[in-house]
């Protein structure tokens, strides 16, 4: 029996249980007129029984599948010739993969070893039985627990409270998913990064000024010396992100002020969505815009001023990235400025403040948290952006503060390190995780600082 069928049947059972419990709760108190004698509305009794019917059965089914596979595996191995049972760990793993491949049909039966084919057959039978048993058991549990729950219905059963507490747990579980994912990502990155720091010392990594992530295959190889100094990457990231913020923060903030305070209603309804379209353009499109249009343009203009501008430069990537993140600043700032109560503006106007004085001294300080939030969002987009930099700023890890030169960023290097065949015992690959970890810590620090700034300078109304 396929497990998805079982799930569907359980859900059908639960909805039947809902109807049954609802009508039973009504009939217990003698029809619809007696509903006020029930502790909760009839629908809550239905929900209560449906939950009891579905949740334990689904939990059992999930657990069965998690554990069942291992049990089947052990049984299959136990059936195999003894020679196979005493293989070392890595070869046993290979064997297991062979069996799995045969089962899934990825490897044709004819080409596999006879023992493996035997084992595969055995596996299929066992797992079929296991699925059937699990499915039947789950259905039994659903029916049994469901009917017990129906029996427990009494007019004074506090069904609403129980359903609501179940809902509360569901909400908690949802927020738990986000937190656990974050923790999981941090832990996995941390694990690989620590692995990396066995090869390269953290001091060299954090303070080294040369980035050349390669490992020698042979001793006499050209360029065999790898260097993992991350400083050029972080300065590159900083340079491009700063250029992007210098472009986007003033433009975004001023356009938000225009939209919220000066623009006529008609203008606002047209311009605001148009601005937000900027955020919807795929970054790869921005990337070729930067590489094909802005880069060459900058080089031509630079040459006419006697400047040498590389056709792949930090400036072109930064400028285009700045345009990309304008809507992050403007949209959030605009929402916050609009949310400042009219009474504050009236208070300032009544004192004889001009419009610009009102905006500068009253509206903007009150909207500060939202504005900083928008800038932060923009900054983290700028730091995390990869595609535009790959296409427009190049891959060479120059340690420079000159925006006309090619630089590279942390995220670009992470991408290039992990592309293609990668071995997980080489520092070349593991460096990506170390870079990711430092980047994560840097953005975390940025967030904390910004939060402090907002707390200190925010002017809270209401």
């Amino acid at each position: 029996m396929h497990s998805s069928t079982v799930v569907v049947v359980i859900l059908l059972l639960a909805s039947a249980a809902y109807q049954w419990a609802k009508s039973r709760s009504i009939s217990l108190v003698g029809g619809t007129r007696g509903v006020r004698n029930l502790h909760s509305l009839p629908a809550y009794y239905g929900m209560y029984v449906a939950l009891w019917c579905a949740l334990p059965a689904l939990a059992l089914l999930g657990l069965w599948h998690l554990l069942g596979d291992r049990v089947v595996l052990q049984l299959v191995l136990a059936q195999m010739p003894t020679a196979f049972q005493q293989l070392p760990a890595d070869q046993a793993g290979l064997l297991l993969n062979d069996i799995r491949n045969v089962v899934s049909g990825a490897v044709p039966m004819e080409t596999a070893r006879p023992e493996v084919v035997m084992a595969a057959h055995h596996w299929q039978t066992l797992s079929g039985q296991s699925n059937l048993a699990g499915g039947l058991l789950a259905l039994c549990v659903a029916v049994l627990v469901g009917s017990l729950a129906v029996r427990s219905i009494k007019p004074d059963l506090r069904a609403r409270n129980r359903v609501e507490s179940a809902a509360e747990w569901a909400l908690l579980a949802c927020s738990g998913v986000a937190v656990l994912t974050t923790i999981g990502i941090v832990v996995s990155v941390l694990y690989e990064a620590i692995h990396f720091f066995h090869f390269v010392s953290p001091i060299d990594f954090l303070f080294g000024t040369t980035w050349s992530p390669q490992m020698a295959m042979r001793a006499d190889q050209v360029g065999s010396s790898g260097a993992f100094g991350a400083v050029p990457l972080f300065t590159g990231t900083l340079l491009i992100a700063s250029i992007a913020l210098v472009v986007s923060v003033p433009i975004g903030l001023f356009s938000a002020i225009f939209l919220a305070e000066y623009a006529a209603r008609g203008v606002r309804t047209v311009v605001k969505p148009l601005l937000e379209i900027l955020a919807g353009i795929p970054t790869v499109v921005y990337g070729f815009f930067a590489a094909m249009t802005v880069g060459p343009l900058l080089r031509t203009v630079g040459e006419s001023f006697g400047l040498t501008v590389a056709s792949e430069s930090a400036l072109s990537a930064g400028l285009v990235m700045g345009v990309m993140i304008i809507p992050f600043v403007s949209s959030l700032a605009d929402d916050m400025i609009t949310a400042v109560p009219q009474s504050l503006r009236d208070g300032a106007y009544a004192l004889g403040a001009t419009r610009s004085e009102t905006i500068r001294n009253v509206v903007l300080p009150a909207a500060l948290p939202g504005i900083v939030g928008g800038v932060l969002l923009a900054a983290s987009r700028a730091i995390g952006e990869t595609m535009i930099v790959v296409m427009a700023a190049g891959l060479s890890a120059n340690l420079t503060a000159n925006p006309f030169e090619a630089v590279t960023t942390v995220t670009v290097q992470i991408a290039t390190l992990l592309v293609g065949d990668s071995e997980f015992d080489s520092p070349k690959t593991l460096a990506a995780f170390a870079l990711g970890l430092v980047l994560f810590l840097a953005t975390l620090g940025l967030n904390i600082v910004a939060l402090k700034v907002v707390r200190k300078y925010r002017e809270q109304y209401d």
Partner: protein
Amino acid sequence: MTIEQHQHVTNVARDVVFNESDHSRPGEQVDTKTVGQVTVEAPVITARHVNVHYSEKHAIKDVSIDVARNSVIAFIGPSGCGKSTFLRCINRMNDTIPNAKVSGSIQLDGIDIYDRSQDIVQLRARVGMVFQKPNPFPKSIYENVAYGPRIHGLAGNRADLDEIVQTSLRKAGLWEEVKDRLDNPGTGLSGGQQQRLCIARAIAVDPEVILMDEPCSALDPIATAKVEDLIDELRENYAIVIVTHSMQQAARVSQRTAYFHLGDLIEVGPTEQIFTNPRHKLTEDYITGRFG
């Protein structure tokens, strides 16, 4: 100066008892249907034939009235009668409302405030306003009061500014309560204190007229009593126009009272006379609580 005149006939107008002899200021005859004395000697504000339209709605209908110096005039009337709208005409706060159209003339010390050459910033520095709900800026108590003097450049240095802030807070009767915590946010004060802070903020720019739009409607009785005492004291230096829903309040704080009804100014007179011996039927109905 040309005066736009809007003639209108309403149900109210038919009830009006027209009394020519009331408009007895020498040299000026005001053509109005309002009962009682609309003019005063040496007024600070002179409103003549003011009409306000909100797109289709005719919110203020041909209102003419004077505001006297160093006295309190109360605007009373049922909700939606236009008293707040008229109040907001006096410092042109209606300018911020789209579709609001004001015609007629309002003069402050003989100068038309709706004149093209009148700067709105200067006008509002001379005509302060206190709102229904206390609206202190989300800044410190000090900065709230200092804001007006700062933007108008009234204080040359920090000492001057400190002086203005202290005097204003004293006049608003708030100094003793806040002198030790001038750096605390103004929004942290109680409702009554916030409203007195807003009054201090308004008088810090040294206006001639203070407009108050139901200044006590969000306050408890004790805070209300304090603000009312304050209004009585402020009368020494300022002309005050107060809109109120509380007739007791109007009777307690004002010297003159104006009764508005559906955009018409029905009756104006000394407060005592309006409350003891109203001459118009509508005023009497409102005062005696038959509606409103």
